[in-house]
């Protein structure tokens, strides 16, 4: 598992060169954006159940057969598993966001996820749809573009609009999950 710093170290080591001014430019930006990154992570951690539940509900509304007998979210035991997985995916995305590197998401969450879902008979297209809704919700909460009240309390006051860049990084992690599923 890597973070932005150790990613730079691993690639410098492959060249056998120390990390100089060139590589440090990107790392200094990562450090300078630390408060925004932490706020963006808080935006996820403070709204986990809301984001996951909304996404699963949205997915079910689009495919009402899912909660009927024979559907993939019937009975509630399977619906609960679905909600749980939504939260797990959000958890790994919050780790990746904090680390500024997707390796933890890849290694510990996405590796083998599609195969597991296929083996369990989980419809991956629907799962990917739920992740897409989580992405939209997360980005909206992070950038404070959601309708209604501000949904998280960051350490960096007035952070929402400044989180734009970090929010697109978060969106790229959701896209990673979607492409791993499809």
């Amino acid at each position, binding site marked *: 598992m890597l973070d932005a*710093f*150790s990613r730079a170290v691993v690639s410098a*080591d492959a060249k056998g060169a120390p990390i100089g001014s060139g590589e440090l430019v990107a790392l200094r930006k990562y450090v300078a954006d630390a408060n925004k990154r932490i706020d963006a992570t808080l935006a996820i951690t403070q709204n986990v159940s809301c984001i996951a539940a909304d996404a699963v509900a949205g997915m079910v509304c689009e495919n009402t057969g899912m909660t009927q007998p024979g559907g993939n979210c019937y009975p509630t035991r399977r619906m609960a598993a679905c909600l749980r997985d939504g939260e797990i995916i959000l958890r790994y995305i919050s780790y990746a966001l904090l680390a500024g590197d997707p390796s933890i998401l890849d290694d510990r969450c996405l590796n083998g996820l599609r195969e597991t879902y296929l083996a369990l008979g989980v419809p991956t297209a629907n799962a990917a749809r739920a992740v897409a809704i989580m992405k939209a919700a997360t980005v909206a909460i992070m950038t404070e573009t959601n309708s209604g009240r501000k949904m998280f309390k960051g*350490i960096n006051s007035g952070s929402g609009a400044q989180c734009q860049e970090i929010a697109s990084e978060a969106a790229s992690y959701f896209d990673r999950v979607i492409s791993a599923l499809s």
Partner: protein
Amino acid sequence: MKSAVTTVVTAADAAGRFPSSSDIEAVKGSFDRAPERMQAAEKLASSIDNMTAEAVEAVYSKGFYEQANKDKCARDINHYLRLINYCLVTGGTGPLDEWGIAGMREVIRAHVLPTAAYIEAFTYIRDRVSVPGDMGPQAATEFKGLLDYLINALS
């Protein structure tokens, strides 16, 4: 690769929980110290060859160590300084531990290289760091701390 962030994330994942406020504090603390560490890393990267050459010259000019080992010593000092550069960037001793110290004794013993010369060279480098000529006081503390860590591992 161990760093402040990966340590926190590994612990959170083992417990299956989201990053808590204390996790976030720990990460923030590491970010706060990062600019000084990067300053030290930058200085070290730009003067790694000079630093190595000076230190090796100073140690071997005394004629106390076998001159045939001088080049190998320079190569190794350069290698260890590079790992220290990585440690300064990650903010932990991970790179030194994983790539420098694990198995180090065995390798040095097998090649009959004088660890005493290495220690002397690193001590020389440590004592020559000038504040604020080379780097700021906090950066120098981080750099010297890592040199001491390596010297301890070698002795």
